[in-house]
């Protein structure tokens, strides 16, 4: 049967990660706080009718994207999914642009062309997701393929959910990556539910075991421990850039909110939710930081101020000009490849 709850490390008593300085650990917290705060603000805006369409968040899963993205170098490339907002923030997308994106403003990352988290700032090396999941696994595999062909020390990372492992592209990507031994990191966010479908209706075998079948390493990680996520991603990256091939990281976590804002998740047993609330990733990191003497309240205040400013900026931005609706179907000039993102980890600062 699929792993339901991974063994959590003892809260607060985890050995400090040798690769993380205090400032890195604070940054991880900041990324998670920013993600949660932005998503809460966006939810309020949604209920105020300012966010068209649907709204998705990654409440309770912040560590999965924060930890993993933190290990990515500027020259690495990311295919980020809809509950991974922290990855965008770590790469350098501003909160104001994110809120503008949700509200469909001209200032949003996609200028109103795409909604909610369907965005990727190409200048920061992120490819915007499509709704067909997990199509982006193949795109990440292809990026890794190019890196290997050119002999470059860089990797690609992609996130996808438990549900999407049922679709053909999961197999094609895993197989391709394994056959060609590519520098790609597959982050499987097992948050127990795909919309209303629990994992026991999704797979018969825990997907982490598929990795061996495709010829590479699969690792289960506590998805709510941001430092464990970082470590798993860092190790996977090492493996990738030294020719060790792909890694499948199964991050075990829980989707604490509904599939989207319009879903009240009545199908999730209350006990399950309560159990996972005790393992909230932000609470756990907060405990660590307090123990290390960090003023978490000040950090929270900073993040809130940042979000307030971002909301003000985003609300002031105009909607896109309808006359531009037909533009940009084709690239008329040169094809610009993805650019480099920001890298926060001290390990990348020279």
């Amino acid at each position: 049967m699929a792993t339901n709850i991974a063994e959590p490390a003892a809260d607060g008593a985890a050995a400090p990660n040798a690769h993380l300085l205090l400032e890195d650990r604070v940054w991880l917290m900041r990324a998670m706080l920013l993600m949660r705060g932005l998503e809460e603000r966006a939810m309020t805006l949604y209920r105020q009718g300012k966010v068209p369409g649907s709204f998705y968040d990654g409440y309770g899963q912040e560590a999965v994207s924060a930890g993993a993205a933190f290990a990515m170098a500027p020259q690495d490339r990311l295919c980020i999914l809809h509950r991974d907002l922290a990855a965008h923030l770590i790469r350098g997308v501003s909160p104001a642009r994110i809120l503008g994106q949700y509200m469909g403003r001209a200032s949003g990352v996609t200028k109103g062309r795409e909604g909610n988290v369907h965005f990727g700032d190409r200048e920061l090396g992120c490819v915007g997701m499509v709704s067909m999941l997990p199509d982006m696994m193949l795109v990440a595999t292809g990026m890794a393929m190019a890196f290997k062909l050119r002999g470059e020390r860089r990797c690609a990372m992609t996130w996808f959910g438990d549900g999407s492992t049922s679709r053909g592209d999961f197999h094609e990507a895993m197989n391709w990556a394994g056959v060609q031994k590519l520098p790609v990191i597959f982050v499987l966010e097992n948050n127990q539910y795909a919309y209303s479908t629990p994992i026991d209706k999704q797979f018969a075998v825990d997907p982490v075991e598929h990795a061996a079948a495709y010829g590479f390493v699969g690792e289960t990680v506590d998805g709510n421990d941001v430092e464990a996520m970082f470590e798993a991603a860092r190790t996977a990256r090492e493996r990738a850039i030294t020719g060790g091939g792909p890694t499948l990281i199964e991050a075990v976590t829980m989707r604490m909110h509904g599939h989207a804002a319009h879903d009240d998740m009545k199908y999730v047993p209350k006990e399950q939710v309560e159990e996972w609330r005790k393992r909230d990733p932000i609470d756990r990191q907060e405990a660590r930081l307090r123990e290390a003497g960090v003023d978490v309240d000040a950090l929270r205040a900073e993040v809130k101020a940042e979000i307030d400013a971002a909301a003000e900026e985003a609300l002031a931005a105009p909607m896109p000009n309808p006359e531009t609706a037909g533009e940009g179907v084709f690239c008329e000039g040169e094809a610009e490849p993805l650019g480099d993102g920001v890298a926060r980890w001290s390990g990348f600062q020279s």
Partner: protein
Amino acid sequence: MTTLTYLQAISAALRDELRDDERVLIMGEDIGVFGGAFKVTDGFIDEFGPDRVMDTPLAESGIVGTAIGAAVVGMRPVCEMQFSDFISCGFDQLVNVAGKMHYRQGLAVPITVRLPSGGGFSGGPFHSQNPEAWFMHAPGIKVVAPSTAEDAKGLLHSAIRDPNPVCFMEHKHLYRRVKGEVPDGIFETPFSARVARPGSDLVVIAYGAMVPVALEATEDLDGASVEVLDLRSLVPLDEEAVLDSVERCSKVVILDEANSTCAAGAQVAALIAERGFESLDGPVIRVATPDVPIPFSPPLEQAVLPSVDRVKEACRELLAY
């Protein structure tokens, strides 16, 4: 100039691109060691190595999807579907990931997808299709279909150099049957139409393998002066060339080897009805394969694919109208 077959012209284009641009990568099933199902890439692996002439797993979605990934980090992948029919397995990646990426994210996807298309050799339903209309209908994808050796080379160069996803419809029937003079070196043919033969009494609009059919059917048609317009590019469609031919000839027969409903010719007919109405001296006639899967047995297959005789008959009737 060199006389090449249509197939040799495609090979030559790929070879020239691989030599000229280190970003170019060709990928597909059995294209490396085996040289390709139709031998288009025969010998390539010796010159360019297995990295750039890549034998991929049997995974069309994988081929298109990884090509997209490679393209957005600076490569110029040219993927081959062994038969155009198999693009259906990669439809999602092509239409939803590649086609929409620039509009949504401002990120260009410079991939070329080579699609050996068409029937006429008892390939049966899954080795004989002409799927271009599916991709004409999807925003963000260009579609070209050469009918001559020269255009096969020039359009392939243009496709590879285009920053957008391009479907290159290479018609299998023309591979070895069509020969022509091809300029040496790299040259780019624009995505426009070409008058294959000028005329004044009637114009037959066609592309791909239907162009030689049109030319043969109307070469000596009761002394009538029949123009043949080779569309060459389906997206973008050369509307001005179509309307110009219609204005001069006033009678139009549109030829599709693809299944009739919503084929490329249907779009051309709609364009003419809307913008060429004042020039028409008769109804716009379409000759196309009926809406049936392409059958295997020769008498059945020949009965459905548009023949020289069917085209002659349609032209005669319209000329007399």
